[in-house]
């Protein structure tokens, strides 16, 4: 397996042009799938026998929750690549992904709280998943704050990369200790709040939304990475030819 494709991809000018080309190919399908997913989730899917129509919030809550974890993992991988092989582009990807991840985590928390209100009668319940999602938000904010408070871009990239790696190692520990802590205090009488029993016509919109959010993230990431690349390639020669084309 020769590594030329990897080096070609890692070279900023090549990636900048490539990102520009594929952004629309990610954006429009994402938009289309979101419309389909929402229609399927809100209109076609029957109400849940237990939670009625409130369960429809799952169509935005679950994909966001998944994205918040996925983006953190991807960011840690990009950080590792950036640190080990000193590829500036990988740091640009990590820098671009962090705010989007934080947004998804925030949405997960709010939609979770909105979903919990009718079920539990309170806006916030120290439920295991919501608590670990909240801690994940702190991790994201820590990353963004660290990167923002360091002026020198090179140091900001590498410092955030180390923090992302330390965070990703701690993520499973936080996850399981919160679960253990939750089952311990609440005992085993938690309401069956887990995934409601899903029939196929409830399921397919959820899968569509999962794919749609991934494509959406791809599009936003490409845009942000292009911006980050421009910030980092301060006086690269290819810049003039690219920007004045």
């Amino acid at each position, binding site marked *: 397996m020769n590594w030329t494709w990897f080096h070609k991809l890692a070279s900023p000018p090549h990636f900048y042009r490539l990102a520009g080309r594929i952004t629309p190919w990610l954006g429009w399908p994402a938009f289309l799938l979101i419309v389909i997913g929402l229609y399927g989730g809100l209109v076609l899917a029957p109400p849940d026998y237990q939670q009625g129509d409130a369960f429809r919030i799952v169509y935005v809550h679950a994909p966001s929750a998944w994205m918040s974890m996925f983006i953190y993992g991807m960011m840690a991988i990009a950080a590792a690549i950036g*640190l080990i092989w000193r590829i500036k582009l990988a740091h640009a990807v990590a820098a671009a992904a962090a705010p989007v991840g934080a947004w998804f985590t925030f949405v997960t928390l709010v939609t979770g709280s909105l979903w919990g209100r009718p079920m539990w009668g309170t806006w916030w319940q120290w439920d295991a998943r919501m608590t670990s999602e909240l801690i994940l938000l702190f991790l994201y904010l820590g990353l963004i*704050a660290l990167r923002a408070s360091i002026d020198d871009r090179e*140091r900001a990239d590498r*410092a955030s990369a*180390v923090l992302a790696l330390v965070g990703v190692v701690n993520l499973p520990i936080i996850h399981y*200790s*919160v679960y253990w802590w939750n089952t311990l205090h609440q005992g085993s009488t938690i309401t069956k709040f887990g995934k409601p029993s899903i029939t196929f016509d409830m399921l397919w919109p959820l899968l569509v939304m999962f794919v749609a959010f991934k494509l959406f993230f791809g599009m936003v990431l490409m845009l942000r990475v292009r911006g980050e690349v421009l910030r980092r390639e301060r006086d690269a020669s290819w810049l003039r030819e690219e920007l004045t084309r």
Partner: protein
Amino acid sequence: MMQTSITQAMALIYRGDLILAFRRWEQIAQPVVFLAMVTTLVPLALSPELGELREIAGGVLWIAALLAALLGLEFLYRSDHADGTLEQMLLSGQPLALIALAKTAAHWTASGLPLVLVSPLLAVGLGVPADALVVLMTSLALGTGILSSLGAVGAALTLGLRRGSVLLSLLVLPLAMPALIFGARAVDMAIHGEVARGPLLLLGAMFVLSLTLSPMAVAAALRISQE
């Protein structure tokens, strides 16, 4: 002239840092005074009733100890960065991760250990029964150890930054939450007379994990921060 062995170098750093810490003893006193103050706030805020205080003593002591240890993290690499000795450590020809381990150990002895030693006094003030004090001290020893090693990564990353201390707590506290969960739980069980082996063992596991992994992260962070 033979190059100093790594163990000698680590011992030298450990002793050196402790000497410096004791010459600036007010830095050592700060976390301990903070812990004492916070635990006196609790009865004032809640109730003088020892029975009631006993219920929350585990959590209060642990949260106060965690914040006090966080306060102690300020002094970890800041003075070395400021006076240039950090550069000499990087260029000492000794493995940086082990030097970081020695510094973390010295920092724990100067800031974590005093908290552990003073905690029984404050625990009695919160109505903690005598037989729970051993579990309290063990759990706090492991907890402050975890915070020192994880905190060292945060301290190294935020070296020389403007409002580094606020950032430091934002970076380190989420990582210390699992330790808080098991530590407070262990003390709570001990207070109620149950055997607290389970949480203590998990806390010990976390301590070993953070002790082995974090020096490497600290070494990387130090190189990045001083560049």
